[in-house]
Every structure is written in C-alpha cells, then in structure tokens.
C-alpha cells in the first residue's frame, strides 16, 4: 500500500473505507494472511470494493479453517440432520452456539464442550495446554453457566522419544497449573502414546458447566442502543505471530514491533473473570455475552452482531491495549486470553461497572448495538470496517473437498494380527500369560495415569463423586437432591485408522459405555475431530467417514451431538496423525449417591462378566505392543451397547452392583487388574467356562477387545435378582469369580496368581520411569 488518498485517511494514517473505495488497485497481503484467490475475490464481491486492511484482517481470520469449518461444514450437517424429536427433547441449546445445553431436570441445565489446542501445545507445551483449558472454560461461561469440571484427552508421541518428555511435562503442568488455579476439578481424560503424534501432539480440553434454565445466555447483540463492552485482560499482540504482515496498514515505514506467536495464560485473571461473569448473570446485567477466543474481537463483534439485531458500531481506539503499537487489524485479530465481550442495556451500566470495580477487572465501552444490519468499526472516528456481519461470521467459504477411500485401505484391513509375524510367539503357558498381563498393564497406554492425575485437583468444589481412575467423572449439581452428571471421553486412533466409519462409532460406544458403567443415563455428545489435512483426499475420506459413522451411531444410541470442534492439518509433512475423533458423552444421575465405582471393595462379592468375547485382536493394545497395526477393529454392536448400558444403569439404581468396570483397551486382563488395584482388593477368577462358552482360548479371552462388555461385582444378596434381570433381557453373563479381600492377589485359577503388589509396581512404575 502506498498512497493515502482521502483527507481523513491522511489525517489518521489509516486505511479507511473511504480510502478503499477510491484506491481499488492497492495490493493487499491476502495470500500471506491465508486467503485463497477465490476467497479474496469473494470478499471483494461481498463488499463491492476492495477490503480495508482491517476488513481484510477480519475476513482472513474468520474465514480460516479453524473459524469457518469450511472443509468440514458440509459433513458436520449430519449431526443436525440425523436427530429425532425424541433426541431433541432434552436439548435446550444445540449446535451452533458456544456450547450445547442439555436439560438435567429440576430446572437445572448442563453445558459441555470439547476443543483442541494441538499446535500451540507443540510450540510451547505449558502455555499451549494452559490456554486450551482457559479457552474452553470461557466458552462455558459465555453460556451463562458456572464451570464445574474439566477433562483433558491427550495424545503424545512415543513414550521414549526425547521430545515426548518436553511435551508431557509442559502440557500436564500447564493443564494443572491453569485448571487447578480456576478451582475446577479435573475429573478425567485420556493419555495415549503413539509415534504418529510425535510432531502433532493432541491436547483436547473439555469443560462442563451448570446453570438454571433461566440463566442460559446466548451470544447475540440485541436491542438498539445497548452498549458493547470489552472486559478482562488487555489486548496484546498475542497469536498474531512474528513481524506482522499487517504493519503496512498504517502506512508507517518504521519497523513493526515484535508480535508474540504464543499466548501466555493468566489463570488468576480468568478465575476473577469467572466470578465476575457469574455475578453479572446473577444480577441479569448482560443481554448477550461472548468469549474471545480464536479471532478475538473480529469473531466477538461479528458473531454478536449477526446473531442479534444485525448491527453494531464500535470505536476501536477504546480497546485497552497491552501493546500500544498494535494496528487496528492486529487488534481485531489478537487472540489475547481472558477477555469477554458483553452487551449491556443503558440502565445496567452503573451496576455492571460496580461488578467490575469489585473484582478489579478492567473494561472499556466500545460502542453500541444498531439496527442498520452493518458492523461499523471506527478508528478515532474514521470508518475502517463497514460490513454485513453475517458475511464475516457465517457466510464464509464452504468446500466440498474431494475424498476417496485410500488405495492402501484394503491391504491394511487384510493384514490381520492373528497369523502375522508379530503374533508368532503368542503367550499360552501360565507363565507366559502372567508375563503378558504384567507387560500389558505396564505398557505406555495401559499403565496407571497417576503421574498425570496426581497433578490435578480433583476435589475442589466438594462435589466430585467420581474421578480418575474410574470410568467416568461424576459431579453433584444439587446438594439437596443429589442430582448430577457423568462425563467420559474416548477415542481410539488405531481403530479409526483401520476403519474410520466404525472407529468413530467405537469411540462413541466406549464413552457411552463408560458413562453407563458409572450408573448415569447417557444424554448428549460433544466431539473433537482431530485429523490431518483435508486437502488430502485420503484424510478427507477419513473425516467424512468418521462424521457419517458418528452421526449414524448417535441416532441408534438416541443421544444428540450438541457441540464440538474440528482440528485439521494435524500432520507432519505429508504424514497425517491417525484420525482421532475424541468423543465425550454426558450422562445424568437423579442422585449421584448411586454412582458405581470401578473397583472391588467388598469381600465375597461375586464377579460377573457381561457380554461375550470374540477374536478381536486387530488394532488392540496387545497387537500395538507387538508393533502390529492392521485388520479390522472390533465389530460395532450399538444395540448391544444400549442393552448393556440399561443393565448397568438399572443395576446401579436398584443397588444390585457395588462396582462396575467396562472392558475396552487391554480387554479383560486390563479390567481385572484395574478393578483389583482400585481399592487394593484381590479376587479369585476362573476363566475356563467362559472361554469354552465363547469358543476362544484363554489368551484371546484376556486380551481381545470385543466391545459391549463389562465386569461387575454383585453382593451375594443381589445375585438372584441380578441374574434374573440379565436373563430377562437376554444378555449373556457369566459368573467368573469372587472378590477376595484377604488374598492380596489376582488369582486366575488353574493358570497363575499375580500378587497385587507386583501388579501395582508394574502398573504404576511406567510413567515415573520415563518422566521422573
């Protein structure tokens, strides 16, 4: 940009709308800002002129993959389409808002959402992961809810790769450092090590909030004359990165100052922001509210305006800055953390300011809501943005990216574990089977996650009824009635790699099963779709198949997707990560006192295995430990999952079981060991009858990952009732053992006995060995 034509632009050294109108041919750095030629042409078409530098900044961030979902939108539609009326009945707010809201009953509602912060974590693990927690929590606040819990599904590279320790230490400390400081219990997550994530670790963060129905807030700016306010942290150059490409917008030849590529979180500021927002909600002091995440003020203004009466006028010089050298475009793009934008009616201004003063939160009034249908942004009185906010927030480009089943998929699926070279020395003697069990529970993915979870506060708030290492996290919402919820997150990248359609369904099935295992009735789904580049037809096929599979499965299970997030371009060079759709399921408890823990505690209780076992070793942890990945993942049987869920929920409600643990990665072997170590209580188990019934050898029975299974412990007095219930529902069950509190061992009769101490050393030693 070279010439400044209008008087006003000259006066302010700024690219105004007036200037843009008369200088159509100015070169703009749209390519550097990530726009494609066709996208830039669209911007020009929408505006009827070239964009100003500030407008270009807004469109470029809002039309990015991250904000516009341009590659996934056409597929994500299925989540909204494949829903029945029945599924909608408890959905108070669905997809499209900051987070979905589900009715819990008694006037309570719960909102939850999962998001990714993958690449920031690779660059700076501590801050990347910390700000991931911060961002998702602000999404929850912006719904009008009090955040009450967080979870953190993680994927890192190989456990013994030197860079993994850097990411692991930083990310876990960051999640703890930020989440613990907010007073939000961390109640669960995942930790998977796999070299496919070496250059692309996944840090997904989930937050849950609760509110009364009448407190639900939406992000919209309505009511002409209502004021727009920005509050919280000051705006800095965060997330803009390097020397800004937009420095030219000020037509200023001096060298641009540095812009930080990483955002540093201030958890204290966020904690204060939470309390401050809750006080605003309590006093009904805001008409609409929006958090500032990716795309900062661009996103907040355009979304608030387009979801409301359609107009807003804002003076950008009113924004409080941390860095006074920021240009208007940079201010619009800045991703500084711990900020919120709200719409306040004039009569509430004084009360709003009083809340800010009380919490010592900085704020500035930026402008007001209009009914013009235009978003006008001024810089010292001069118009630098004049757009239809819908075109920024909602009418971004949408692509039908080409996709096709990869050529290699058939060969991959044909390469089964059974009979492979990696399967050559399959354990079969008692000694080998015992060694295999010890090896399994010490393996990177199956070992105890205490090293991680001990760094997280699970108690704060005093309402945590279950947390790690149980199957789901459970939080009490109402202290009087015990009303509460459960959440679990799951994904298996290997299953999804082998078969994206079914792999995504298996993630849903496992999260559903985990929630039901805790005793809660599954109600809603949130998902974070972590994939490679959508411009690679193989990856695009994985994404399309996963979304199709997930949405189909939600229909069968009768629980809707209420929100989520897509993270694309997770790849190193041309090598994508395994497709990793992380699925979170939320369930409801009428009374969390009925929750079921995952471990045995009472001597003499009978242990039952629910479900049958087939040869499902492809994609299993065992195959993974042997370095094999091929074949087909376990069969999906959603009807079976529903029946199992109903049994677990009824049994919990009617007091028929005292513990339950679902079978997933690591199969029966992992579940037995985890149930024993939970409360340090042993058991005597006999497997011959089930193995004979299912026609599998003991190794397969122990290590296969057939779905739709769980083990439960049943008090003697309830055995008849429990048996009758399962039989009446025609669900296969088998009594496989007895809890033996005195034994201090897991005694697999006729095969081997593993002392609890020796299992514990194996299970708990792995993460400390690698990470100190």
């Amino acid at each position, binding site marked *: 940009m070279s010439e400044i034509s209008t008087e006003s632009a000259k006066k302010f050294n700024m690219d105004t709308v007036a200037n843009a109108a008369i200088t159509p041919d100015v070169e703009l750095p749209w390519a550097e800002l990530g726009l494609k030629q066709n996208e830039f042409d669209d911007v020009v078409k929408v505006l009827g002129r070239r964009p100003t530098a500030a407008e270009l900044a807004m469109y470029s961030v809002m039309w990015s993959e991250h904000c516009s979902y341009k590659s996934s939108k056409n597929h994500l539609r299925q989540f909204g389409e494949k829903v029945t009326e029945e599924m909608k009945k408890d959905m108070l707010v669905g997809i499209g808002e900051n987070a979905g809201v589900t009715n819990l009953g008694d006037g309570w509602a719960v909102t939850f959402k999962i998001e990714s912060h993958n690449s920031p974590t690779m660059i700076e693990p501590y801050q990347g992961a910390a700000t991931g927690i911060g961002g998702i929590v602000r999404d929850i606040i912006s719904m009008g809810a009090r955040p009450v819990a967080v979870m953190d599904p993680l994927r890192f590279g190989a456990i013994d790769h030197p860079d993994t320790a850097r990411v692991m230490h930083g990310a876990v400390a960051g999640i703890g450092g930020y989440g613990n400081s907010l007073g939000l219990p961390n109640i669960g997550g995942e930790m998977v090590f796999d070299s496919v994530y070496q250059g692309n670790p996944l840090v997904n963060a989930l937050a849950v909030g609760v509110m009364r129905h009448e407190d639900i807030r939406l992000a919209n700016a309505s009511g002409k004359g209502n004021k727009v306010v920005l509050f919280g942290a000051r705006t800095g150059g965060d997330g803009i990165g390097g020397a800004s490409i937009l420095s030219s917008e000020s037509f200023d030849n001096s060298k641009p100052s540095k812009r930080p590529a990483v955002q540093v979180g201030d958890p*204290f500021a966020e904690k204060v922001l939470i309390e401050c927002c809750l006080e605003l909600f309590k006093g009904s002091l805001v008409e609409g509210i929006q958090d500032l995440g990716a795309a900062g003020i661009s996103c907040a203004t355009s979304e608030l305006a387009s979801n409301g009466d359609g107009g807003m006028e804002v003076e950008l010089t009113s924004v409080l800055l941390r860095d006074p050298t920021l240009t208007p475009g940079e201010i619009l793009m800045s991703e500084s953390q711990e900020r919120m934008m709200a719409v306040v009616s004039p009569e509430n201004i004084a009360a709003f300011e009083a809340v800010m003063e009380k919490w010592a939160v900085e704020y500035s009034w930026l402008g007001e809501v209009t009914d013009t249908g235009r978003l006008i942004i001024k810089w010292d009185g001069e118009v630098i943005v004049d757009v239809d906010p819908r075109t920024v927030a909602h009418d971004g480009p949408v692509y039908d990216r080409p996709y096709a089943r990869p050529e290699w998929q058939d060969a991959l699926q044909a390469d089964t574990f059974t009979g492979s070279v990696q399967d050559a020395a399959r354990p079969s003697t008692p000694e080998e089977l015992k060694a295999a069990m010890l090896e399994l529970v010490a393996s990177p993915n199956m070992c105890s996650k205490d090293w991680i*979870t001990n760094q997280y506060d699970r*108690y704060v708030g005093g309402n*945590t009824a279950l947390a790690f290492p149980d199957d789901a996290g459970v939080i009490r919402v109402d202290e009087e009635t015990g009303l509460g919820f459960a959440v679990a997150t799951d994904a298996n990248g290997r299953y999804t790699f082998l078969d994206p359609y079914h792999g995504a369904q298996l993630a849903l099935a496992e999260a559903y099963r985990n929630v039901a295992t805790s005793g809660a009735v599954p109600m809603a789904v949130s998902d974070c779709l972590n994939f490679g580049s959508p411009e690679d037809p193989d990856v695009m096929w994985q994404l399309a198949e996963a979304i199709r599979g997930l949405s189909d499965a939600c229909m069968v299970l009768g629980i809707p997707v209420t929100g989520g997030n897509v993270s694309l371009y997770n790849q190193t060079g041309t090598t994508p990560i395994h497709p990793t759709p992380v699925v979170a399921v939320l369930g409801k408890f009428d009374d969390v006192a009925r929750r079921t823990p995952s471990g045995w505690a009472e001597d003499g209780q009978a242990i039952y295995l629910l479900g049958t076992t087939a040869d499902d070793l492809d994609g299993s942890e065992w195959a993974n430990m042997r370095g094999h990945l091929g074949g087909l993942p376990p069969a999906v049987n959603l009807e079976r999952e529903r029946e199992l869920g109903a049994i677990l929920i009824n049994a919990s409600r009617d007091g028929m079981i005292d513990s339950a643990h679902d079978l997933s990665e690591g199969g029966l072997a992992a579940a037995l060991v985890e149930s024993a170590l939970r409360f340090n209580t042993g058991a005597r188990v006999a497997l011959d009858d089930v193995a004979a019934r299912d026609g599998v050898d003991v190794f397969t029975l122990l290590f296969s990952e057939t779905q739709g299974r769980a083990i439960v412990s049943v008090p003697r007095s309830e055995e008849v009732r429990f048996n009758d219930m399962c039989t009446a529902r025609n669900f296969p069950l088998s009594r496989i053992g007895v809890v033996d509190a005195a034994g201090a061992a897991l005694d697999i009769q006729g095969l081997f006995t593993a002392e609890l101490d020796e299992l514990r050393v194996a299970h708990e030693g792995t993460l400390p060995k690698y990470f100190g």
Partner: protein
Amino acid sequence: MSETPLIGGATLAPVDSRLAGARIGVVTFPGTLDDRDAVRAVRLSGATAVELWHADTELADVDAVIIPGGFSYGDYLRAGAISRFAPLMTKIVDAANSDAKLPVLGICNGFQILTEAHLLPGSMIKNDHLKFLCRDQVLRVENNTTAWTNAYAAGEDITIVLKNQDGQYIADEKTLDALEAEGLVAFRYMGGNPNGSRRDIAGISNAAGNVVGLMPHPEHAVEAGYGPGHTGTDGLGFFNSVLNTLLGDK
C-alpha cells in the same frame, strides 16, 4: 434470578441451636478456590458460615475465621504474599493477637497467607519434587489442645486431602526447635513426606493455640462420598473443635 449452583445448595437445619449461634467467617480473596467448601464444612458442623470479602474493613462480628485454600492473586510473587496486605487481614491479625484470641484457621493458601502475615512462623516453598500434588494424606494429630484440634485424640491419625504446589514447610533450625519444644507442631505427615517439609510438619499453631495453619484440606473431608477414598470425613473434627472452643466445652 436463581442462585448459581454449588454455592451452598443444601439447607441443613442445624441440630443444635447453640451451634447455629456460632458465626464462622470464611474469607474470599480474588483467586480463592475452596471458600465454598469451607462454608459447607462449617454448615455441616452446625455453625453459621459468614462470607467475608478481602476488601471488607470489618469482621462482621464473627466468632472465628477460616482463610481457605486456593490461589489468591494467582500465587503470583509468592503464595499468599499479596493477599496478606488485604484490609481484612489487618483486622484478622489484630483480633487474633488480641485478648479475645479470635480463632483463625489457615488452610493451604490460608496457611501461606498466615505465615506471610507473620501470624505463624516459617514459610512455604515449592514442593521438593516441583510438581503440584493432589493425594489423600494421612496426618498425625500432634497437638490436640488448640482451638481447631481439640475434638481429636492426641496422636490420632486422620486422612484428609493434600493438594498444592508450594507446600514445603521451612523455617530455620531455631524456629523448628522452638516449635517442637513448645508443642506447637499440630500435624505431621505420615506414610512418607509428600513435599520435603522440615521435620514432616504439615501444620502448626501459635503459642496461644487460637491460630492454626496447615497445608492439607480438612474441608474436603467432611462428607462421605466426596472426600478421601470417597468415604472419609476425618476433617470434620476441625470444625467441631472450634465449636467446642466457642461454646466453652473444651
């Protein structure tokens, strides 16, 4: 507009009206986290919880004060360093040192604030392993004569929650010797020192016994199902103790 959740939902009718007359203040600083839990613990003990704000200049006629855990001011600078200068802290320090000997309990960040305010000797630095640690922790009650420990038996072992990043108690040898000699070590860690604290000290009291500070969290062990091991209620003794003190039962 309804109350936001998790701010004291249950309205438990106090069993003993004498107890309900006891007003226990719970201080909230910006960044305090466990204030609601402390309020709940007070309520479960039968007393009346009074919410106090750090910027208040009066103590609202409370009979005792709890400074709860959390990250006041983000633990920035040093844990408790900035909070210590809050207007209400001056009042608390004066009342604790006055003849009335206001009972004051500092839990975790509250303990750190009390040491920064010099109501209790010593200080806390980063855990020796440098990590935040959350775990169920066994403590030995070494001194059951304070305002906050008299409901326990001397030498009793209790299990409550430990969770902090800067929990390593330190003081010079002279101070430590004096604490030991005067019986002012209130709690000691059992089953392994979790953070490098000198002489396994988990909590201490002042000489008068009205001011007690400890790193672990008794307010997280007052309700079966929500505490250590999901069954423990060993923390209730703290709140019962102060009621004993206030009612002159001990």
